């Protein structure tokens, strides 16, 4: 079987996988990093969003083999320590931006990418536009938008 090596959340990892293994399967099944979810498997819902070399992508539509040598960040890698949340995670908690929580890891990874591209001062309209690729089945968008605005600000501190 083909071999793949990449860095996930700062740690080097390798695996022997079938060529057809998706990145999200590799993360969840081989590495047991189950924070990255599969909501649709058709590139629509954004539950599977991770960062590849710093850029948000849908891990259900990437082959793990394509990530040879890449740097991957998942929701498990964003908090600064075991006991502390990342400011964006903290903002989601503070603003009650989740109900069932299924979409949340993807929402947070996308939110961090919005901050990367658009900066720390985000108006609601921008956030809503930029969340085009993330669906929340519980439709808690209002609080998600609030949380991302607050989290983006908190990240500047």
């Amino acid at each position, binding site marked *: 079987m083909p071999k793949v090596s990449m860095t996930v959340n700062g740690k080097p990892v390798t695996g022997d996988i079938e*060529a057809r293994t998706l990145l999200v399967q590799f993360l969840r099944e081989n590495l047991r990093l189950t924070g990255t979810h599969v909501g649709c498997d058709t*590139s629509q819902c954004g539950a599977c969003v991770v960062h590849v070399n710093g850029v948000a992508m849908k891990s259900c539509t*990437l*082959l793990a*083999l*394509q990530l040879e040598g890449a740097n991957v960040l998942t929701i498990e890698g964003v908090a600064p320590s075991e006991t502390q949340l990342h400011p964006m995670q903290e903002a989601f908690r503070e603003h009650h931006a989740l109900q069932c929580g299924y979409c949340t890891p993807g929402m947070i990874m996308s939110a961090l990418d919005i901050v990367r*591209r658009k900066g720390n001062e985000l108006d609601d309209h921008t956030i809503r536009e930029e969340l*085009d690729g*993330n669906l929340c089945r519980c439709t808690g968008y209002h609080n998600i938008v609030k949380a991302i605005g607050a989290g983006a600000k908190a990240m500047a501190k």
Partner: protein
Amino acid sequence: MYNFTYHRPATVRQAANLLAKNPEAKLLAGGHSLIPVMKLRLAQPSALIDLNQIDELAGVEVKGRSVVIGALTRHADVANSQVLQQVLPGLASVPGSIGDPQVRNRGTIGGSVANNDPNADYPAACLGLGATIVTNKRRIAADDFFTGMFSTALEENEIIVKVMFPIAKKAAYEKFKHPASGFALVGVFVAKRGSDIRVAVTGAGANGVFRVKSFEEALKKRFSPKSIEGMTIPATGMNSDIHASPEYRAHLVGVLARRALAKATARGDSDVPGAIAGM
């Protein structure tokens, strides 16, 4: 999805050799059309040849009176290209409407052009600007390249390397976006470069992207929405599905062409200052 063998060439030449050796292989660019189709088992390539490690294939640059975009350039990088926004904003605006932010971070212009999805945006931009598709073997004019839905003039063993867009003084794209998929229900690209006037339509035609000669003719006198006021195209040959009837699509072609013309003339040195009539 069915399994396959995976190859990661470092150069276009290596990719071409692999393609020659594996007749059932497919090229993998952004993969955001191909991987979904493979998941549905509608495509079953024996091998995938991943072009993503070929650095020479990515980038946007101005060369003389053209903008040259490498085949592996991601939608987000085309949309954010400062130089493109300056010299050809009508083209820079196209990839920003594709999919969603994460899809734009991965999808590529070469993949979109090679796939020639009948609802995709880039084919309209290529045809509307009279682009040249450059492969590892030859140059193909956009007019000859798109040969019907999901089909192109590309031959076996042919790889798109870059797309060259002539810099048009006036150019704009208007799209009626399907609210769920983000694809163009109808999209119209208009451009004027000297006496060359083009109106290209995606999403509407049952046979993929096409030009509207009657509009182009009418625009020769004056490149303005007024020149095609009230004009429409026949509904025959238009696509029909649950989203829109052929008549509605034909109607949208006229409406969007007028909107695109208004945008293009407001952007370039306007023939008719401030014209936004004829919506």
